[in-house]
C-alpha cells in the first residue's frame, strides 16, 4: 500500500543574485529547470515536488545539483507525506486549510 510514511516531498529553496543581467538569466534558467522537472512553485524561490519514494528524491537531488547556478545559496529539504500534512499556512491573518497530497488518479 502507498503509505504516508513512504511517500515523500522534496523542497528546493534558493536565494540567487539578480543584480547583473547574466545573473538574472541564470536564476530564470534555474527556475525553469525546476519547472521542467515537475516542481511547483509554493512561494517565490520555494519549489516543491511530490515523490513516491526516497530513490526518486535522490534522483531529483542529483538533477538539481547538475543545474545549480554559480552564485547564491540553495537548500534542499526532504520530508514524508505525513509531515507535509502538518504544514500550517497563513494567508494574511487567515489560516488556510492544509493542502492534500495529489491523488494517484486525476479526473478532469
Amino acid at each position: 500500500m502507498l503509505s504516508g510514511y513512504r511517500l515523500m516531498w522534496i523542497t528546493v529553496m534558493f536565494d540567487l543574485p539578480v543584480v547583473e543581467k547574466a545573473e538574472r538569466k541564470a536564476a530564470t534558467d534555474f527556475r525553469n529547470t525546476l519547472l521542467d522537472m515537475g516542481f511547483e512553485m509554493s512561494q517565490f524561490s520555494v519549489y516543491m515536488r511530490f515523490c513516491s519514494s526516497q530513490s526518486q528524491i535522490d534522483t531529483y537531488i542529483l538533477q538539481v545539483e547538475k543545474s545549480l547556478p554559480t552564485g547564491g545559496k540553495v537548500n534542499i529539504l526532504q520530508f514524508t507525506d505525513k509531515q507535509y500534512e502538518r504544514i500550517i499556512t497563513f494567508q494574511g491573518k487567515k489560516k488556510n486549510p492544509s493542502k492534500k497530497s495529489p491523488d494517484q488518479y486525476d479526473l478532469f
Partner: protein
Amino acid sequence: MIGRIVEVADDRRHLFLSRGFLVVQDTEGERKELGQVPLDDITAVIANAHGLSYTNNLLVALAERCAPFVLCAANHNAVGMVWSIEGNFQQAKRFDAQIAAKQPLIKRLWAEIVKSKLQQQAAALEATGAPFVPLSALVRKVRSGDPDNFEAQGARRYWGLLLGDDFRRDQQAGGLNAMLNYGYTVLRAATARAVVAAGLHPTIGLHHSNAGNAMRLVDDLMEPFRPMMDLKVWQLHKQSEGEVTPESKRALVRTLYDDMQTSSGTTPVMVCAQKLATSLAQVFMGEKDKLDLPLPGLPLSLAASLQDD
C-alpha cells in the same frame, strides 16, 4: 515507478504542455485552468470524451516518456493509443531477441502466465468466499503452451463463481461489464507502458494471435493482473455500485496501487507489471530463465485490500 493515471472525461477540455506539466484547461467561460500534473509522474492519459483538444507538443512530451495517450470509445474500451516507438536504449537488440525466440520457450512462458492467472483467479475467489478449488486444481494440469486451453476453461467457471451464474462477460454490455472494460483499459494502458519501456515490441505476442490486434504482448502480460480488477468490480458490486461513475473509476484505478506478493516482497500491481515486462525482455535476451510473476495472492492481504475505500 508508481505513476499517476490522468483521465479526461468531460467534453469541454483543452490539454497542453507547460514546462514540465500537462495542464488541463476549461474551454468555456474564462478558460480556467483546472489542474496540472507533472509529466514525469504520468503513467497514462485516458481521453474518454469527444470534445477534447490537445496540442502536438503535449503528445510528443508524453511519447518521450513512454506514457500512452489512450483514446476511448463508448463502453470504455480502448480503440487507440499514441505512444513511443522507442522506449528503451536496448530496444533494437531486444526486438531481435524477441523475434528470434523459439517456440518451446514461448510455449513455456505462456504456460507460466496461464498458471499465474489461474492462481490469481483462485485467490480472488478465495477472497470473496467462493469455492476456489475448481481453479486452483487446474494450475498443476497446465502443460507447455496450454494445449488443453485451461485458460478458457478456467475463465468459464471463474465468472460464474465470482459474479453469479447469470453473469455473462460481454464487451459491448453495460453495468458490471462496462466496469470491467474500464478497469482493463486502465490496466492495459499501464501494461503497455511497461512493455514499451522494457524495449519489447507490443505486437509480437506469446499467445494472443488475433491479426487485428496490435497489442498482443500487452494482452498476454496483463492476464495475471486481471483478477485484481475482477475482485474490485465484485467489491463495488457488493456495495451496490453497478455503473461506471467517477467514484467507481477512482476505485478501479486505485487497484493498480494495491499490493501483490512477489518473490522480492509486496509491490503494487503497477510495479509488478513493470517487473514482469522487464523479466520477459531478460528471458528473451538469455539473461534470466524465469518470469517475475506475482505469487499467489495471500487471501488475507487481498481481503484487507477489500476493506479500505
